[in-house]
């Protein structure tokens, strides 16, 4: 039960956080300049956006849940199972960001989820 709760927080809070960050990034626009000064300016610009802070808060919750589960489970089990966020991410991107997800991408995401299920069966 403890594992299920922690995985739920990793998947739901982590994915919701990434969606918020993605929304903030799309607000900034495409990056063309990769010089350190420009990247620093890009990071500072992103920190002025409320979506960025909400994203960071949710991702932090997911991160602390990850730390907790890593204290008693193997890394090679925890990280692949947390890929359940792929399905959550696809639905979230479609609903929240308005991204169009074509059939091939859905098939790929479904295969990733089958892989996650197999990894779950390998639980010790």
């Amino acid at each position: 039960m403890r594992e299920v709760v922690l995985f739920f927080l990793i998947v739901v809070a982590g994915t919701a956080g990434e969606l918020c960050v993605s929304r903030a990034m799309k607000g900034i626009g495409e990056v063309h300049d990769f010089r350190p000064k420009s990247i620093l300016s890009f990071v500072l610009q992103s920190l002025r956006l409320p979506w960025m802070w909400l994203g960071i808060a949710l991702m932090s919750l997911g991160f602390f849940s990850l730390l907790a589960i890593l204290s008693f489970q193997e890394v090679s089990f925890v990280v692949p199972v947390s890929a359940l966020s792929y399905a959550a991410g696809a639905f979230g991107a479609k609903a929240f960001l308005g991204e169009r997800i074509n059939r091939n991408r859905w098939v790929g995401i479904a295969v990733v989820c089958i892989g996650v299920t197999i990894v779950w069966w390998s639980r010790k």
Partner: protein
Amino acid sequence: MTHTRRLQLKTMPLILVSIILGPLGNVFLGKAMKGIGTVASARILDLVPIASRVLASGYIWLGIACLLGFFIAHMLLLTWADYSYVQPATSLSYLSISVLSYLLLGEMISPLRWLGVMVICLGVFLVGRTSPSTSGAPSRA
């Protein structure tokens, strides 16, 4: 050079950085947390001494540094590529995390777990054949 081709040329190097730094960060975090012991309580008073031990671990900071590098690469990717493309594409990291867990942490990975990781990578391959952005250019699929 087509718009999609140009996007793929700058997307691939950053995905490579992501699939190395992300797993390396998680391996360091795992090493640190195994040294701390099982976190069994969610009470704040119990978590304070655990948090102080966690913050004193060098591996935690090494892991956070790697994950910070991963996060910046991830943010840059998200300025032009779809979230639903970036997230599955960087799942190649599941292959590298299995290898790193075996090599650096000595975790014994069963054939079933390797099979699961391979299936995840197959899913990544399928996702990688779609356009990075479905809003800026016509999709190939």
